[in-house]
């Protein structure tokens, strides 16, 4: 009896049907999510995937998105990065056709083309790079052995064959790697160097070239400076000569014009003009001068033996010249000062 009155605390803790249903749905959801998680896989953009069943490849996925598979350990998805990958080959010294030792460093850009083949033959990036390293090293030696050093380093662009060498290496390496599901897209020569033991000789050559260049520069500089100065002197002398010639021309022209003008003036009356001009000349030279002259020679003959004035007015010039000596003026003024 007393039992019937006893209230079992577990009865009140019993969930209602709604709560129970909620919990069941929640549990189913969680279980469903776990199952979905184990049965699905994502393929991101830039990736492919290979699905294996107990290790046996049963399919490939080439599109990004959510995909289904049986849960592990039945099936397993292997995502394969299909994007470009980069690989640097190590330094390798190689002989060229003309027996020159050269160190080349190359890079390779590659990507997975066949994910299943890649997974089966190489599996990992590291294995693929090891394969690439061996292949590129071998092809590099083969290829460079057919070209002289000037095919890599030369100022004559017609000798340069770097692109052809790269293309040959790419073709050979790509062909080899095709069998491993790998597509080699580019092989590039990114460093060309000499082995350490050769660099000292290169430095010596560089020093000798620089010294020769410095000497040439010094000599050329001095020569150029001297030429500049001499050019200026020669040019100045030439221009001065031209200027003197021009000046002479100006003076000659002026004299010619003056002579023409005076000739025109003289034409008015040559006799009177000559007479007048001589007197003018005497005035010019006679200033502050000691004048010593023969009494029978011009222009001072006009003083000692002046021509006669014309008889008629206006005078015909010719008749003036024939003027008699009787018309000559006396030399009284001169005689005062002149000493015979």
């Amino acid at each position, binding site marked *: 009896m007393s039992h019937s009155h006893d209230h079992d605390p577990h009865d009140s803790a019993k969930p209602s049907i709604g709560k129970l249903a909620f919990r069941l749905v929640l549990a189913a959801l969680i279980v469903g999510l776990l199952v979905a998680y184990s049965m699905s896989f*994502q393929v991101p*953009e830039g990736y492919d995937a290979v699905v294996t069943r107990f290790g046996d490849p049963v399919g490939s996925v080439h*599109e*990004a*998105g959510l995909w289904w598979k049986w849960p592990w350990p039945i099936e397993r998805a292997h995502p394969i*990065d299909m*994007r*470009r*990958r980069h690989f640097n080959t190590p330094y390798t010294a190689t002989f060229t056709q003309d027996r020159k030792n050269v160190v080349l460093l190359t*890079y390779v850009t590659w990507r997975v083309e066949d994910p299943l083949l890649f997974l089966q033959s190489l599996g990992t990036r590291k294995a693929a790079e090891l394969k690439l390293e061996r292949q590129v090293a071998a092809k590099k030696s083969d290829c460079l052995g057919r070209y002289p050093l000037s095919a890599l380093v*030369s*100022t*004559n*662009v017609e000798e*340069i064959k770097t692109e052809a060498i790269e293309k040959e290496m790419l073709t050979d390496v790509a062909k080899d790697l095709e069998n491993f599901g790998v597509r080699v*897209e580019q092989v590039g*020569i990114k*460093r*060309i160097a*000499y082995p350490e033991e050769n*660099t000292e000789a*290169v*430095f010596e050559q*560089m020093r000798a070239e*620089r010294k020769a260049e*410095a000497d040439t520069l*010094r000599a*050329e*500089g*001095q020569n150029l400076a*001297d030429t*500049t100065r001499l050019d*200026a002197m020669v040019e100045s002398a030439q221009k001065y000569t031209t200027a003197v010639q*021009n*000046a002479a021309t*100006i*003076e000659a022209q*002026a004299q010619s014009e003056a002579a023409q003008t005076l000739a025109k003036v003289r034409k*008015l009356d040559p006799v*009177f003009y000559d007479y*007048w001009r001589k007197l003018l000349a*005497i005035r010019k030279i006679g*200033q*502050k*001068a*000691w*004048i*010593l*002259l*023969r009494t029978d020679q011009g222009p001072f003959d*006009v*003083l000692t033996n*002046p021509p006669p*004035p014309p008889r*008629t007015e*206006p005078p015909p010039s010719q008749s*003036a010249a024939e003027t008699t000596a009787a018309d000559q003026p006396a030399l009284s*003024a001169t005689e005062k*000062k002149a000493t*015979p």
Partner: protein
Amino acid sequence: MTAKRRKSSPVVFEGLAAGLRMFRWVVVILLVLFCFSGVQKIDPENVGLLLRFGKLQGESGGRQIRPPGLVLALPYPIDRVLQVPVKREGEVVIEEVWKELSGTPPSQAIDPVLEGYCLTGDQNMVQIKIVAKYRITDPVAFELWADAQDRDAILRDVVLAALTQTVATWDVDDVLNVQREIPVPGPIESPQSDEGVQSVPKILESLPKIVMAKAQRRLDALGDPGGFEGCGLTISSLDFTEKNPPRHVLADFQSVQSEKIAMDAEQQRAKGDAAGIRAKARTERDAVVKQATAYENAIKGQVAIEREQFERQYAEYQQNPGLIWRKVYEETLEFLHENAERLYFVPPGSRVILPGESQP
């Protein structure tokens, strides 16, 4: 003892129940936060790409690109938002073929493994440091072309390959100047200079531009013909921040540089001297011409005066010839009388002894 346990049990259950209730709320809050955890803010310099279960959302082109702002994405692992900095200039520093100049070289040789350099076409060595700048032109291609590490390495190496192969065809001096002059390709009629020498027309080639173009070609060749085109980035510039010969021969190159400077200085001095010579000569030339011009003016003036005087005199003479004839004669005599120091008239055949002169 049992009574005591019976008393304490409800307290424990109540505590547990309260804890569970609190835990439930925490779970609810966490669930709510989880549901909104996919919402992301795209920064102004970026654009976003939304991947749902790894697949890029949007049909193609512009629809795949989310502009700056909020992106309402579902929580991880359903959605993932990639931010691509399209408005920022990316930068890669390439110093594989460069070495600090400070310090003395450890030996007279260079180990190419430890210290990089480029070989020039004339068999010299140079060391160069480049900063390659690029812009993202296609965010989808940029993100899906290669992973970030490989992308940087590819960019670095295509630039390095383009640099190495270009420098291998240039002279060392041109490489250090990062430019050179080359004849214009093709049959072009070359004009004749003043000296009559055929001058070949030349164009200026810039080393950074050539290297940039070659590197871009290499990048573009890596595009995916089946999907997006190109690598989604364009090299915007190559800065040759350092370029020098190896420190083993630096002093020799500097001596050439010093000679060039000295040569330039000597040239400047020579030009100065030449300018002085020309200026002096110009002054002398001008003086000669001015003297001639002055003479011209003087003689013209003199002639004009003489002409005027004669014409005036002649006019008078025409009026009165005898008078004027005598007048000019007398005026001359008067002038000589007044102005001549001495006036001697010597009959022909006379012997003259001037005062102050020693007798023969």
